[in-house]
Every structure is written in structure tokens, then in C-alpha cells.
């Protein structure tokens, strides 16, 4: 927890320093929103409406949010890898099994981790918004509040999903070290599937920016097997797209938790 908050503080300091300096250097050289928009269109596959919305965000906020969500799954794995496996190895789980249902153990451990995580993520977003507002006085209070709420929800949705993945990895492993290894492998597999799915265009889609160089293929649909594919939905101004993102993430969380419950219920302890 301390490590996470320290990392977040460091990130904001570095990103704030860089983006502040860059703003001063490029001051007056064209419309910064248009520049940011064209950059986002080149490197992301977000919808135009989403790009339009996030291009208006202070750069420090955008970079800090992206970096946090990038490393969040790994941080969650480090926080919770031994929640179940850490009790299976030394067999202290046996004192619980005769008293409570295995399902309750899975849910209890998960909710414990998710609650601590939620507290940390709220603090992280408050720090991000405070830094963004401090470095960008023209970023209005209304925007600060609405984006603060949106980013908090996005972080929480992403956080609880990866916490569920960590619970699943911890439920199948026989020791804490193995649980962490399995979790990191799972994240690597997700990253690989995402890269593979995004190497091609979905059939019938309009190519934008660098996507014009890609071929269309049904292989592209495998990207939807990975939660991060829905991350940009969580920043969308379109309620339908936003809702899809939230539902998709929570759906992944439920699948991970269901599998964790199944794994712990059936395995020898």
C-alpha cells in the first residue's frame, strides 16, 4: 500500500515536471488540444468521441492515469498474491475450512483486498486531480469534479477486476510464490492476447490513423478476451460505451471470482 502511494507520488512529480516543462517550451505553438488529439488518434484505438473528450484533459492527468492503470494489475498481484495461497502452504487454511464454507473464504479474502485497494485508488485519484488542478489553473473545478468521479470509478472497476484475477491465481496455487508467478504469467498472457488481437482490424471496421496499415481479420476478436480491451470505454462520454466498459470489467471480475470459488471448492487443502 505504502509502495503504491509512494510510486504514485513519484509518478505525479516526474510527469508533472515533464508536462509542465513541455507546456512552457511549446507555449503558443498551435492548439495543444488538437496536437494531443492527433497524437491519441495515432496511438490508441479509442472512439473519436472519447479521444475528443480526453484530449481536453491536462497531460499530467492523462499520463498519470495511463501509467497507473498500466502498472495496477502488477501492483494488485504484489498486494494480494498470498491471500489464499499464503494460508494453503502453511495449512492454516485448515482451521477455517471446518468453520466456514470455502466460498465464504474466497469472498472474504477478495472483499478484504478490494476494500483496501479501493481506499488506495481513491487516494491516488485525489492526488492526480490535485496535481492536475495545481499545474493547470484553467482546468475548471467542475471538470476536476466530474473527471475525478469518472477516473475514480474507472480505477475502481479496473482494480476490483484485477483483484479478482489475483484471487483466482491465489486460489489455484499451492504457495504464495507460485501464486505470484501464476499471476504474472496470466498478465503476460493477457498482454500477448491483446497485442495479437490488435495487430489486425476487426472485419468491417473503418481504419483510422496507423490502423490503415493493418489487415482485417476475425482473429481481432480475441482482443475481447482481455479486460484491458475495455479500458478506453471507461473514459467515453457515450453512456452506452461507458456502460459496456463497466459491465465488461465487472463481468471479467465475476468470471475470475467464480473460477476462484470453483478452484478452492474442489481442491484438496
Amino acid at each position: 500500500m505504502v509502495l503504491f502511494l509512494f510510486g504514485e507520488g513519484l509518478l505525479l512529480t516526474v510527469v508533472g515536471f515533464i508536462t509542465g516543462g513541455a507546456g512552457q517550451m511549446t507555449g503558443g505553438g498551435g492548439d495543444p488540444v488538437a496536437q494531443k488529439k492527433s497524437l491519441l488518434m495515432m496511438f490508441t484505438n479509442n472512439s473519436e468521441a472519447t479521444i475528443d473528450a480526453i484530449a481536453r484533459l491536462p497531460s499530467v492527468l492523462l499520463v498519470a492515469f495511463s501509467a497507473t492503470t498500466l502498472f495496477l494489475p502488477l501492483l494488485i498481484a504484489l498486494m494480494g498474491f498470498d491471500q489464499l495461497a499464503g494460508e494453503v502452504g502453511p495449512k492454516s487454511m485448515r482451521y477455517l475450512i471446518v468453520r466456514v464454507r470455502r466460498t465464504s473464504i474466497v469472498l472474504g479474502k477478495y472483499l478484504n483486498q478490494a476494500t483496501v485497494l479501493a481506499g488506495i485508488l481513491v487516494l491516488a485519484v485525489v492526488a492526480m486531480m490535485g496535481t492536475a488542478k495545481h499545474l493547470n489553473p484553467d482546468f475548471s473545478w467542475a471538470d476536476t469534479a466530474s473527471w475525478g468521479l469518472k477516473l475514480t470509478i474507472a480505477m475502481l472497476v479496473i482494480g476490483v477486476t484485477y483483484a479478482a484475477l489475483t484471487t483466482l491465481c491465489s486460489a489455484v496455487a499451492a504457495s504464495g510464490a507460485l501464486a505470484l508467478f501464476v499471476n504474472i504469467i496470466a498478465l503476460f498472457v493477457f498482454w500477448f492476447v491483446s497485442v495479437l488481437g490488435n495487430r489486425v482490424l476487426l472485419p468491417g471496421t473503418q481504419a483510422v490513423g496507423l490502423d490503415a496499415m493493418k489487415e482485417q481479420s476475425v482473429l481481432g476478436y480475441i482482443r475481447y478476451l482481455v479486460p484491458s480491451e475495455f479500458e478506453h470505454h471507461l473514459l467515453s462520454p457515450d453512456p452506452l460505451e461507458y456502460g459496456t466498459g463497466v459491465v465488461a470489467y465487472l463481468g471479467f471480475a465475476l468470471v475470475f471470482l467464480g473460477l476462484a470459488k470453483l478452484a478452492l471448492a474442489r481442491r484438496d487443502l
Partner: protein
Amino acid sequence: MTAAIELRGVTKRFATKVAVDDVSFEVREGDCCGLIGPNGAGKTTTFSMLCGFLKPTHGHLSVLGVDPFEPGALKQKVGVLPQDALLPASWPVGTLLTYYGRLSGLEDAEGEAKRALERVQLPETWKVRAGTLSHGMTKRVAMAQALMGSPPVILLDEPTAGLDPKIAASVRNIIRELKRKHTVVVSSHNMQELEELCDATAILDKGRLVSAATMAEITGATAEFRVQIARGAVPLDEVKALSGCRDARLEGPNVLCVSFEGQAMQPEEIITSTVALLAQRNVLILGVWRGKRLEEKVLQLT
């Protein structure tokens, strides 16, 4: 008396290794049953299946009429002292036991925790972190959590292993107090302890059940007794001639073994008449014990 614990054709495989193979026995309500066998016999695996830690590969297993592997089936029914299960190190003992009591749904969890700690003579550890306790203390705290709420079935895996003689004796006293009021299963290597405590035994070897019987049956108590001789010549022919005596022989220079008609004769009658005869012939006696000792029987069977 009805069976509190039943195993019917229970098998447990780990990959290709068969740890428990087609084991069937039952433990009657209120009995204290010893689970006996050499290392690798399948005792702990059988014990773990009774506790719901392991799921049998085949067969039927029930504790108080429920499948231990069913979710929440053992709550408030069974108290378990698992072997080598560590208590969470950072928890103070009192807080930990109270927490376990709450999970078990006990109304006065804290009171139960205090009473259980007093029963194992460790009330002073209430605020001590579990990780700082000695091996013996940890074992007794683990015993305390098994006793909380006075569950009808208590399963104890190696309850006196690694304890000093004084503490081991106090643990045996606790088990003795549990008899009749609870159904108790004790897994142990200590044959003397089991012979003293148990009403019945299940002997396992290489995963298979080699004997399941009452302690009296297994030690041959109804048909045999031994006299340890300190000094003097044993009149074997006169002993053989005693009423009810089937056979008498010397096992080594100092042990007289007498077999008798167990069904027809009360053991105290023939023991008394044998001792009286030996005393008349100036044979000095060091001790008398009934039946073939459990350890010998187990060594024979396994």
C-alpha cells in the same frame, strides 16, 4: 450405539499414488478411536478426509451423517487439531481464538476462547502473538481451538507429538475427559497412549485397513494376560491346571503368558487365582497386564 463416523470403500489417489485404498470402518458415537499405522500408512490422509480437507477419490464417507467435503457441513459439529498446520503468526492468541469462535457461530466466542485456553492451561498466552509460542504451546493452543464450542466430534492428529512428558500427560487427561461426552478420533504413533485412551482402533498399512476392532479385541484382552516375574520358578503345570486356563507359557525368562476361555470366564477371576498361586509358590511379581499389547499387535499386522 449408532455410528458417528462411517467410511465405506474410501480411496484417495494423488496422481498415480494410492494413499488410501478401499478403507471401510466406523466409529461409534461416544467412542475414542485410535488411527494407527506406520509412516506412509495413510493415517493423515484418512484423517484429512474426515476433516473435509481432502476429497475421497472413491467411496462414501460421513461424519454425523454429513459428507465432510460438503460446504459448511462440519460447522459446530467437528473440532479439529490438524497436524503441522501453522497458526497465523501475527495474531494474538486470544483474538485468534475469538475469531475462530465467531466463525464457528459461537454466541460467547470470547468466553469460549478463554475457557478453552484455561482447559489447556495456557490462559497467560491470551495477548501473546501465535508466532512467538513454543512448539508445545502452539500445539495446546491448536488443541484449544478444537475444543471450543464443545463439538460432538473431535479429531486429533498427533496431539502429543513433540510435547514434553508433563504436557503430554495433561493433553491425555483432556482426551480422557472428552471420552463418552464426545466422539474422538486420535491419530498417533504412540501405542501406549492409544492403548490407554482408546476404545477402538483402525490399523492402516500401506493405505489399506488391516484391522478395525475394539481395543479389547485387538489386544486380545478378553483371552490373554501376562505376568512379569521378578524372581522365582514359575509352576507352569499348576498354572495350566487352573480352572478356565487354556494355556500357559513363558515368553522369555521373566514373562508368563496365560491364555484363557475369554467367553466363559471373567478375566479378574483367572488373574486373581494365577497371582495367588504364584504368591503361594514364592514367585515375586512385578506387574500384570491384560492382553497382547497394542504395539506388538500393530507390529504383527503391519
